[in-house]
């Protein structure tokens, strides 16, 4: 009699399915949330990269616009006896441009902001024959670099 009863209850017990389903749902929920978060953070990263690219080329465009204006000035003064002086005077009318004299022309330097922390710095040499040469065209950080003094360790003296 006892043996027959045991035979009837053998197999999947009551509650086993509930436990398994709760476990499966928990696993699926965790995976779903993780994949959603991963896709979201990837999307946010792409947005940041896209915005940076947009800002960088907007600054690059402004810097090129200044270059075209400076080149126009240099072209108009081509062959002039007072090229450097006249160029400096004319270039000063453009905001943010500083000019240094060269033996056969002058160098104009200016920077255009990309964002709060970075700028595009340009250094262009303009020559008396109306030509120009870009010496530097690079992105720089606006923050000043502070050298780390290092750890304050005992130097062996009392």
């Amino acid at each position: 009699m006892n043996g027959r009863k045991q035979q009837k209850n053998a197999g999947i017990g009551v509650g086993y399915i509930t436990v398994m389903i709760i476990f499966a749902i928990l696993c699926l929920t965790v995976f779903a949330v993780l994949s959603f978060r991963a896709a979201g953070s990837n999307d946010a990263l792409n947005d940041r990269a896209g915005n940076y690219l947009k800002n960088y080329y907007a600054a690059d465009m402004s810097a090129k616009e200044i270059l075209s204006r400076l080149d126009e000035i240099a072209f108009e003064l081509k062959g002039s006896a007072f090229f450097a002086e006249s160029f400096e005077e004319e270039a000063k009318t453009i905001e943010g441009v500083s000019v240094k004299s060269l033996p056969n022309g002058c160098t104009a330097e200016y920077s255009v902001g990309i964002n709060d922390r970075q700028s595009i710095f340009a250094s262009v040499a303009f020559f008396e024959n109306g030509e120009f040469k870009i010496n530097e065209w690079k992105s720089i950080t606006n923050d000043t670099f502070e050298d780390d003094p290092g750890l304050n360790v005992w130097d062996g003296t009392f």
Partner: protein
Amino acid sequence: MKRSTKRPLNLFFIEMIISLLFFSISGAVILSVFAGADKKSRAGETLESVIVFSQSVAEVYSLNGDYDETMKIVSAECGKLDDKITVAKDEEKTENAAGTFSKLTLIFTENGRKIYYFTCAAYVKNGGSDERT
């Protein structure tokens, strides 16, 4: 003697039905979350390819200031964008005595939805490209 008709098997079936109901409801919610993640991931991939393409266009355009030539070079070097993505351009050229300043705006749309836009520029001296070092 009458035997009892109540069996543990009935309880098992009731539990299974309730569990399956709960599982199907939860499964529907979880599937929609997965679908959302997949949609977001695809959108991210598209945006990433558009950004890479834009950067290539900007770099080539800054040297020649010619949209058609730029697209020819970029398509040959980087491949074409997905067919679903359409590119609208707006090019503006300002000439002075010394050279030509060109401004190019590209607008990328996917199924009529604007996904990205950016503006780049070029300055080309008359008689050739600039002397960038």
